[in-house]
């Protein structure tokens, strides 16, 4: 049996220890927020928080997690009471197709949990692994900036943004 603590709830699952966490979340726990994108750790659609770190859930076997707490987007809020990041994403209309968004929000949440006031550079570096194929990165970043109390991207500031990096969340 595999024991998993997800969003504060303990589960005992009769699954193979090499099952990726994403499959357990979606198929066994019916938590459909995290998405299967590439299955190779390249896109970030499956991002959840494991023990405080943003992690690609498609790459982590459930047998390796042990007692580490897992957080998914379902743990951040509800439709009636969305969490701060979820609210900001709605207000900024950061969603086009929406497939990457749960991963984006969870990666941003991991940063803000650790550092509620990141710099622009820290924000860009942290969000780089997650891709949005629709190209709503500017809105995604605007939503995160709002929660992180960062100035808008065009306002003058101390840390200039990184050079454009294809493949990153610019």
């Amino acid at each position, binding site marked *: 049996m595999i024991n998993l603590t997800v969003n504060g709830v303990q589960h005992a699952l009769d699954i193979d*220890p090499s099952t990726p966490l994403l499959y357990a979340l979606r198929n066994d726990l019916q938590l459909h927020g995290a998405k299967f994108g590439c299955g*190779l750790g390249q896109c970030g659609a499956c991002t959840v928080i494991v023990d405080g770190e943003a992690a690609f859930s498609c790459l982590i*076997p459930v047998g*390796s997690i042990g007692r580490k707490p897992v957080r998914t987007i379902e743990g951040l809020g509800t439709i009636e009471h969305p969490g701060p990041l979820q609210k900001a994403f709605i207000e900024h209309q950061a969603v086009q197709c929406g497939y990457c968004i749960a991963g984006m929000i969870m990666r941003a949440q991991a940063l803000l949990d650790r550092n509620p006031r990141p710099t622009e550079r820290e924000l860009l570096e942290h969000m780089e*692994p997650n891709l949005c194929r629709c190209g709503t990165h500017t809105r995604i970043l605007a939503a995160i900036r709002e929660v992180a109390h960062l100035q808008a991207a065009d306002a003058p500031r101390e840390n200039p943004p*990184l*050079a454009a*990096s294809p*493949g990153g969340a610019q």
Partner: protein
Amino acid sequence: MTRKSGLLAAGGVTIVAALAVALLLMWKPAIAPVSPPAQDAFDARTKLAGARVVALGDCIVCHTAKGGKPFAGGLPLVTPFGTIYATNITPDVKTGIGAWSLEAFTRAMRHGVARDGHLLYPAFPYVHFTRISDDDIAAAYAYLMTREPIDATPPANQLMFPLNFRPLLAFWNVLFLRPGAQPPDASKDVEWNRGKLLVDGLGHCASCHSPLNAIGGEKSGHAFDGGIVDGWEAPALNAPGAAPKPWTKEQLVAYLRTGRASEHGAAAGPMLPVTRDLATVPEADVRSIATYLLSIQKPHAVSGAEATRAASTVGSPEAQRGAMLFAASCAQCHGPAAPMQSIGERPTLAFSTAVNAATPRNAIQMILSGNGWHGEDSMNYMPAFAQIYNDQQIADLASYIRAAYSQRGPWTDVEAAVVKVRKENNAR
């Protein structure tokens, strides 16, 4: 004069003479500053030749900080003696080399002396650059002096006493610097000679791929026997047995120019940026490098580590735990039927130099750090697992991969190696 006072006098003269020689060695005059040459001071052909020289010398790799402007310096190099920060080699007058004449630049390349006369640390590979031709030095100068000047002062070096006293480098230079261009070997053809010059001179391959002695010089008689740089093993370049399949010239050329070779694997760690530089130079240069490297192979002796492993290592407890991790974390790309291999033509881990190495260091580094995105040439991307797995899990994974994919004996003390490598990485 008594015998005693005569001896004293002779001793005194010797000491004074030794001091004079020492001072002469340590003191280098400043070369007068110049106003930076105008952008049109060099013809296009010289600048183009310079771009090639600078790429072959990998200058940008060390002289650019992470996220920094090209050639503006600031990248830390951790040595056993402390941390050295690469200098700004843009033509900025105040913080870069804008006031350097060609004469000053040439002296730095050949003798390791800055324009103002202070001695440069041998992290700057002038013991190798001294071999290159005057034309190449002039071309590199033309190229660098026409880059964008960046006002950037690198952080101060943090070196242990007495190495923070630069004049002492004069004695290091007596031991390790043999200044001057390298004459060709008449018994060898042009391509071989060009390759030797590129490997020994501009490419300064031995800087990383040779073991260093106690005072940071390359161990004499051990050139290309392999070394350690930035926490990665730089494999021996003269040991054909290091790879499970012998390198062919075509594979070596492909590896150096694309960072990827069939039957071997992908470049990673500090070698990856080198291949990005070599992708920009004419293929003929890389072919010459390959020709020379294949000519320095030592006779292949089968070592203990290469002895066929006991068939049971895949069944060891750590390998069994590693197999579970591999199934979820690695098999999508590295498993037997993975599209990356069947369609993407990536070699199996069985051919990997890291997996077949004598120590698990590079396999551990690869699992910990992966290969990050890098603009458009992200073909060798691999996610990092440092945050996801603990030391034991990384060790289990490495042990499983070794047992499942290599014909060589198991690594020992893998978890201790993971702890060590992580500690080194965190200190960097």
